[in-house]
C-alpha cells in the first residue's frame, strides 16, 4: 500500500510589541511571576481590553509580505473555555473575519526544487498565561505574565506531503517573521510555536484521513522526529485494522514518541461570538499605505535584484537573500565596494563552512562584513592569492579583536578635567595590518617570481622531462613546487604562465 502523508501547520507567532495586545503591560520575557499582569490581564471584574496599534500593524505587514488579502475590517471574537491559564474564561481571538486571508510562502527543498505553500489565514489573538506543576505539592501555580501577549496565528492549507516539506515551511516562515521584525523567533522562549496536523491516506484517495494534531513543538529537530514517528504510527495503526481517532498529541523528546493528550470526539464547543467590548478593527487607507511604505525589501525581490544587479546565479542569490542577517552581511560587504560575485563565493564557501563547523549563525561570525569586503578587495587587486586569503580568514576567525594602535580616534586627554574619555575601543582588526604583519602579500613581481621559477626548474629535471614527453601533470607539479618555494605567496597565474613559457 502506498501512503500519502498530508500535513498542515498552525504556527503561533508572538509579536514584537512592547506592550500586550489588549493591555499596557510589558511583554518582556522572564519577569517574576505575575509582575507583568494588570487588572485587564488578571480578568478583574470591570476590566476592559484596549487594542494595541503595533499588533495590528505587524499583522498587516505579514499579510502584505505573503501576498495575502488584508481584511480591512476584521472582528475579534471570544473563544470560550475554562482553563486556569485563561483568566477571563475566554480567549479574545478572531473567528469568522480574520485580519489576513490567503497568501502563501515559497519553500526550497533539499534538492533545490521549490514549492508554494498556500496559507488559509492569519489572525490576531492573545496568548494565555503559564502554569507550573512541579513547584507545589498539591497545587499548580498560575503565572499570568504571558497572558495577553499578542499572537499571530498562521494557518496553512493541508498541502505539505512530507516532514521535510513541513520543516522547510516552518523554517521559511521563521525566517520571514524575523525578516519583517514582527517576531524575534526565539523558540526556546516560546516566541514561535508550531502545531502540526498530520494524517495519512492511501495514495490516490481524495478524502483526507483523520488527522491528529501534534502540539507545541519548539524546535525544528523535534518537529522532524515527531512527524516521522506520528506518520509511522498512523500507518501501523491503519495496517493493523485500527481507526485513527482525532486527537491532540504531545511529543516526548526523550522517548521520541507522540502520545494523545485529549480526544477530540467530545470536540470543545467554544461558543464563538463577536466580542462586544471590541468594535470592528478597521485598517484605513492612511494606515495601510503607511505600513506598505515601511515594508522592508523581501527575500523574493532581493533574490531577483541580486541576480539582475550583481549577476549572481539563482542558487547563490536565493541562499544570500533567504535570511535577513545573511542578506544584510552581504549587502554591507558589497556596499564597501567589494565585488559581489567574490563576496558571494567567500560567504557561501569559506565563511559558511567555518560557521557550520562551529555551529555559529552569521550574526555570531567573528568576521565582520567590512573585513570580508576588504579581504575580497585585496584578492581582486592581486595583493592576496586565494591561499593567503584563506590564511587571513582563519587568522581573523581566531584572533580576538584588538585595538588598532595607530588608527583609533580618541579625544585628546584633558588632564585634571572631568572630561569624558572614551573607553578603549575594540576596533575591527584592519586587514591591511594583518597582511603586513603576517607577510601574506602575494608576490606578483615578475622578476621575483622568475627568480624562484629558475631555482625550481634547476632542481626539476625529472619533471621537465616528463612534461616534455607529454605528461601535463608534471607542469602542475612544478607549479606546486614554485608555490611552496615562495611560501605560497607567488601569484599562481603568473607562475603558471612563466613556467609554461620557460618550458616551451
Amino acid at each position, binding site marked *: 500500500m502506498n501512503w500519502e502523508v498530508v500535513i498542515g501547520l498552525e504556527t503561533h507567532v508572538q509579536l514584537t510589541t512592547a506592550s500586550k495586545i489588549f493591555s499596557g503591560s510589558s511583554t518582556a520575557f522572564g519577569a517574576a511571576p505575575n509582575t507583568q499582569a494588570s487588572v485587564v490581564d*488578571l480578568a478583574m*471584574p*470591570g476590566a*476592559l481590553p484596549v487594542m494595541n496599534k503595533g499588533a495590528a500593524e505587524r499583522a498587516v505587514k505579514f499579510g502584505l509580505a505573503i501576498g495575502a488579502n488584508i481584511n480591512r475590517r476584521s472582528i475579534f471574537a471570544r473563544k*470560550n473555555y475554562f482553563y*486556569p491559564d485563561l483568566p477571563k*474564561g475566554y480567549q479574545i481571538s478572531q473567528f469568522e473575519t480574520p485580519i489576513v486571508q490567503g497568501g502563501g510562502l515559497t519553500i526550497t527543498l533539499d534538492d533545490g526544487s521549490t514549492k508554494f505553500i498556500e496559507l488559509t489565514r492569519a489572525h490576531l489573538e492573545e496568548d494565555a498565561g503559564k502554569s507550573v506543576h512541579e513547584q507545589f505539592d498539591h497545587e499548580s501555580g498560575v503565572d499570568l505574565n504571558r497572558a495577553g501577549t499578542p499572537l499571530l496565528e498562521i494557518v496553512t492549507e493541508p498541502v505539505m506531503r512530507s516532514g521535510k516539506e513541513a520543516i522547510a515551511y516552518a523554517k521559511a516562515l521563521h525566517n520571514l517573521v524575523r525578516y519583517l521584525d514582527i517576531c524575534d523567533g526565539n523558540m526556546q522562549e516560546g516566541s514561535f510555536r508550531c502545531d502540526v496536523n498530520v494524517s495519512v491516506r492511501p495514495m490516490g484517495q481524495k478524502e483526507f484521513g483523520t488527522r491528529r494534531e501534534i502540539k507545541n513543538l519548539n524546535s525544528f529537530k523535534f518537529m522532524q522526529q515527531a512527524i516521522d514517528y506520528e506518520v509511522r504510527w498512523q500507518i501501523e495503526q491503519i495496517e493493523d485494522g485500527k481507526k485513527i481517532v482525532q486527537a491532540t498529541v504531545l511529543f516526548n523528546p526523550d522517548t521520541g514518541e507522540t502520545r494523545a493528550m485529549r480526544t477530540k470526539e467530545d470536540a470543545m464547543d467554544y461558543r464563538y*461570538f463577536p466580542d462586544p467590548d471590541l468594535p470592528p478593527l478597521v485598517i484605513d487607507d492612511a494606515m495601510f499605505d503607511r505600513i506598505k511604505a515601511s515594508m522592508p525589501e523581501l527575500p523574493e525581490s532581493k533574490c531577483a535584484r541580486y541576480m539582475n544587479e550583481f549577476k549572481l546565479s539563482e542558487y547563490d542569490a536565493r541562499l544570500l537573500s533567504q535570511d535577513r542577517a545573511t542578506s544584510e552581511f552581504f549587502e554591507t560587504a558589497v556596499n564597501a565596494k567589494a565585488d559581489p560575485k567574490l563576496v558571494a563565493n567567500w560567504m557561501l564557501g569559506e565563511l559558511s563552512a567555518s560557521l557550520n563547523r562551529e555551529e555559529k549563525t552569521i550574526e555570531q561570525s567573528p568576521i565582520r562584513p567590512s573585513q570580508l569586503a576588504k579581504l575580497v578587495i585585496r584578492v581582486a587587486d592581486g595583493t592576496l592569492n586565494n591561499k593567503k586569503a584563506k590564511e587571513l580568514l582563519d587568522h581573523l576567525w581566531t584572533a580576538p579583536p584588538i585595538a588598532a594602535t595607530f588608527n583609533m580616534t580618541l579625544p585628546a586627554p584633558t588632564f585634571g578635567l572631568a572630561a569624558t574619555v572614551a573607553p578603549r575601543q575594540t576596533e575591527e582588526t584592519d586587514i591591511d595590518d594583518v597582511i603586513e604583519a603576517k607577510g601574506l602579500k602575494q608576490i606578483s613581481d615578475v622578476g621575483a617570481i622568475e627568480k624562484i621559477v629558475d631555482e625550481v626548474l634547476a632542481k626539476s629535471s625529472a619533471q621537465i622531462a616528463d612534461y616534455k614527453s607529454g605528461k601535463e601533470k608534471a607542469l602542475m607539479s612544478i607549479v606546486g613546487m614554485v608555490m611552496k618555494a615562495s611560501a605560497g605567496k607567488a601569484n599562481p597565474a603568473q607562475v603558471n604562465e612563466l613556467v609554461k613559457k620557460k618550458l616551451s
Partner: protein
Amino acid sequence: MSWNTFATVAETKKALDAKQVSAVELAKHYLSRVSSINPALNAFITIDPEKTLSEALAQDNRRAKGEAAPLLGVPIAHKDIYLIDGWRTTCGSKMLENFVAPYSSTVVKNMADAGMVTLGKLNMDEFAMGSSNETSYFGTVKNPWDLSRVPGGSSGGSAASVAAGLTPASTGTDTGGSIRQPAMFCNLTGLKPTYGVCSRYGIIAFASSLDQAGPFAQTAEDCALLLSAMAGFDPHDATSLDRPKEDYSRDLSKPLKGLRIGLPKEFFGDGVAPGIAKAVDEALDVYRKLGATTVEVSLPNVKYSVPAYYVVAPAEASSNLSRFDGARFGHRAKDYTDIVDMYKRSRAEGFGAEVKRRILIGTYVLSHGYYDAYYLQAGKLRRLIAEDFKKAYEVCDVVMGPTAPEGAFQFGAKSDDPVKMYLNDIFTICANLTGQPAMSHPCGVDKDTGQFVGMHIIGNYLDEARMLNVAHQYQLATEWHKKHPAL
C-alpha cells in the same frame, strides 16, 4: 445645623458654594440618616464612615485652598457594581462577598474629581440581573414608600436611598431598564445615556453591549448636573465615545414650544395597567399645554425587544461571568476533588438561582448549532428596532410612553415566574438594544393601585440635553417629583 434632607443636588451645591454648609456636615447628616433608616430598607450593602468623612474633609480642603469643582462636597452613593479602590465591592453576590476592589471605575473617579463624597455602596439585584432587587445575596431592598413592595431593580438600592433621603443622589446601571424602572417605582428621575457616553471601565460587566452607567436624583436638573460629571471619553474603554465633554444643563430652560412627541402605538396597548395609561395621558396633556404636539408613530419590531434581550443579555453575561471561577479572587468552595470540581462548586455556591439560570440560557444560545437562530437573529432584530426608531425620529423629536406596564408590586408577586418578571422591562429594553438614551420622570399615580407612574422618554442618539430639558420643563409645571415618603 439643620439640613433639609430632601434638598436637591442643585440646592446642595448652591449651599456648599455659599459656604452655608460643609462637605463634612453633609456627610455626617446623611450617614446619620443611613444609620437610623437603612436597617428598615436595606438599601446599603457597605458603609464606611471613616472613609466617607476622610473624603469629605479632603473635598472641604480643596474648597479651602480655593479650588473649584462642579459638585464639590456633594454626597453620592454608588451602586455596588462600581469598583472603588479599597472599598468592598460585591455586585450583590456571595461570589464577591469579601472582594476589595484594587482599582476605581472611571465614572467614580470622574465624580470624585468633580468633588463628590462617597456615602457607601448600594444594594442591587445580583450581578444586575433582576427587576425587583429580590435576588441580592444581601437581602431584598424595601420600597421606602411601602415596605411591602419592591423598589424595582436591578438598581433597587440606588432608587430607595435617594427616595428615602439617605443621599441626595446615587449612581445606577441600566442594561434593560435597571435605572428607569426603579426610578418609576420610587418616584424619582433616572437616566440611561447613549451607549458609550459613560465609561464602563471598572463597572462589573453584565451585558457588555447593553450596560450603561447613569444617575438617580429627584429632578432632571440634578440628573443633568450628575451626568455632566459622570460622562466623558475614557481611553480604558474601547466602546467609549471619543467626543468632547458636554454640559448637559445647557438647554434646561428652553421652552417646549414646537416639541414633537412621538407616541408609539405599541406602548399604549392592552398590557398597560389602566391607571398607568390614564396618568400618562394626563401628563401628555401637560406637555401639550407647554407647547408640545404629539404624533402617533409605529415601532413594528419593538415587540421583539424582550425575546431579543433575553438572548443577547444572557449570552454576553454567560461569557462575562466566566472569570468568576474561584481561582484569583472571589468565592472558592471549601471542598473539591480537582480543578473542574473547584470551578463547578465555587460557581454553584457563589451564584444565586437567577444568575445561574441566565448563564445557562446564555451558554445554550451561543452553543454549537444555536448561534444563528438565537444570537445572530437577536442581533438582526436590534438593527430592525433601531431602524424603526430612525424612521420615527423623522416625524418626532422624542418618543414617550409609560416606563413600565405595572407599578411597584408586592414582594414575591413575580419571583416565581421569571417570564412575568422579565415583562416588567417591556418598554425600557428597546433603548438598551439600540443604544439610545432614555429616562424616566415622575408623572403621577396609578389611582387603582396607588403606585407611582413614570413617564419614559426615549431620545435619539446623543440627545440627552434635549431630553433633560423636556423633563425639566415638565417638572417646573408639576409637583409629582416633590413628594417624599414619610420616613
